[in-house]
C-alpha cells in the first residue's frame, strides 16, 4: 500500500491498534498507517451503527476519529509515535 521507490521515510515505529501491533513510519498520520495496514473501518456512527473511516483527510469531517489514551482524536491529523496505543473499539462514540 506504500510507494516503495524514491520516498524518504522516517524511522520505523510500531503502534498498537486494539492491542495488535501495526508497523508504521515516523512522520505518518495514524490514518495513513492504518490505511497502509488495510484497516479502513475506524469507527461506527453513533446512532445508526454504520462503519465510518477516513474521508476528508484534513481534520474537518471527524469521520476518522479514534481514541488515543482515552482521548478522541482525528486519525488523519495525529502523527504516529512509537508505542502509541489506539482504540477503535469505542472510537467516536
Amino acid at each position, binding site marked *: 500500500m506504500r510507494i516503495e521507490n524514491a520516498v524518504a521515510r522516517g524511522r520505523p515505529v510500531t503502534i498498537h491498534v486494539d492491542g495488535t501491533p501495526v508497523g508504521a513510519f515516523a512522520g505518518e498520520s495514524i490514518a495513513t498507517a492504518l490505511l497502509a495496514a488495510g484497516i479502513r473501518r475506524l469507527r461506527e456512527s*453513533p*446512532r445508526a451503527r454504520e462503519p465510518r473511516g477516513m474521508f476528508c483527510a484534513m481534520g474537518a469531517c*471527524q469521520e476518522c476519529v479514534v481514541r488515543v489514551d482515552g482521548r*478522541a482524536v482525528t486519525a488523519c491529523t495525529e502523527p504516529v509515535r512509537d508505542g502509541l496505543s489506539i482504540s477503535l473499539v*469505542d472510537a467516536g*462514540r
Partner: protein
Amino acid sequence: MTAFDAAVLGGGIMGSATALNLAWGGMRVAVIEKRALGSGASGVNAGTLSLQIKRVALMPYAIRGKELWATTAKRLGVDVHYRVVGGMTLAFTEAEAEALRTRMAERIAAGAGAEMITAARAGEIEPALAGERIVLASYSPLDAYANSSVTGLAYRRALVAAGAEVREGAPVTAIDRAEGAFTITAGGERVVARRLVLAGGAWLKGLLRMVGIEMPIHYRVNQVAVTERTRPLFKAVIMHALGFLTLKQSDNGTVLIGGGWQGFGDPEAGGGEVDAENLVGNLRLARYAMPALAGSRIVRSWAGYEAHVPDFMPLIGPLAGVDDAYVIGCVRGGYTQGPYMGQLLAELILGREPEMPLFNPNRFNEARAAA
C-alpha cells in the same frame, strides 16, 4: 403611509407571540427586529421546558406556556422539536438536598407535577447518571424541551401567514409620538402605528429610553455548549438543585449543556462571548453528573443575554405616562412562558380581559418616580 394598529419592537419570543396574537385578533401588525426573529435569547437558550425549575409565583404562567409549546407545531405550522422526555433535578450534597426539598415542596404544591425520588430511582430512570453521587432528586415525567434555534423560523412563518408585516435587520433609532400615533424610525425607514409594544429583550432599556423611560434593567450572559453526536446516553432533561446545570440529548445524539454559567459582553456592543473558565466549570459539573460525557468533545459554545429587573419578575403591561405603549420582557424562564405571556398582553391590547394578571411594568420606573 397607512398606520399599523400596532408596532412590536423586538422579534424574540415575547414580541413575536404578542404580534401573532394581535394579528390573529384582527389587528394590522408590524414586527420590527434589529437582527432576525429569534436571534437573541429566544433562539440561543438551551430549550428547557421544565415546570420544576419555575418559581411558584410564575407557575400558573409556566404551565400555560408549556401547554402552548405542546401545540406549537400545529398552531405555528413549523416543527419546533417539542419532546416530552421527563425532567430530573439532582442534589449532590446534603445542603443541595435540603434546598431541593424545600423548593420542590412549594413547586409541587403549585402544580409542577414532580415528585421527590431517591438516588436509586434516579439511577433506574437514567442509568448513565452517576447514581452514587446523587443524594436526592426530583422527577417529573411532564418536563420537555424544544429546539430554540427554530423559534425565529417558526414565528416568522406564522406571522407572515397571519398577515403581519415582519421587518428584520431594522434597528430602531427613534420613536416619535404625534397626533395619536407613533412614528418608528428603523433601518432607515419609518413605520407609523397607533400602538407601541416594546419587546426588546436585553435591548429593552434602550427602547424605553426612546420614550423617555428609565428602568433598572440588568442582564445575565448565559452560556450553552453542545457536544458532538454521541451514542444515546439519556432521555430526560437533567438539571441541578442550585441551577448550575441543564443537560439534554437531542434526537441527533448531540448533548446540549447549559446551567447559566456566565460569559461576558454588553448587549449594546454586540453578541455575548463565552468565558473559558466558566465553560470548563460547566463541563466539569456535567461530567460529574454523567461520567460518560467525558468521552464526547465539545463542538461549539455560545452565550446569550437574559434581561431582568431587581425583583426578577416580569414587566408586562401598559407603560405609565405614554398612552398606547406597552412593554413585555424580563421574564426569567421566558422561553417556556413566552408564548403565553405574549397571548396575555395581546388580550389586553385587543380590549379583552387577560386570562391571568399581568405584571405592572411601572414599579421600577425611575424617571417617573423621580418626577
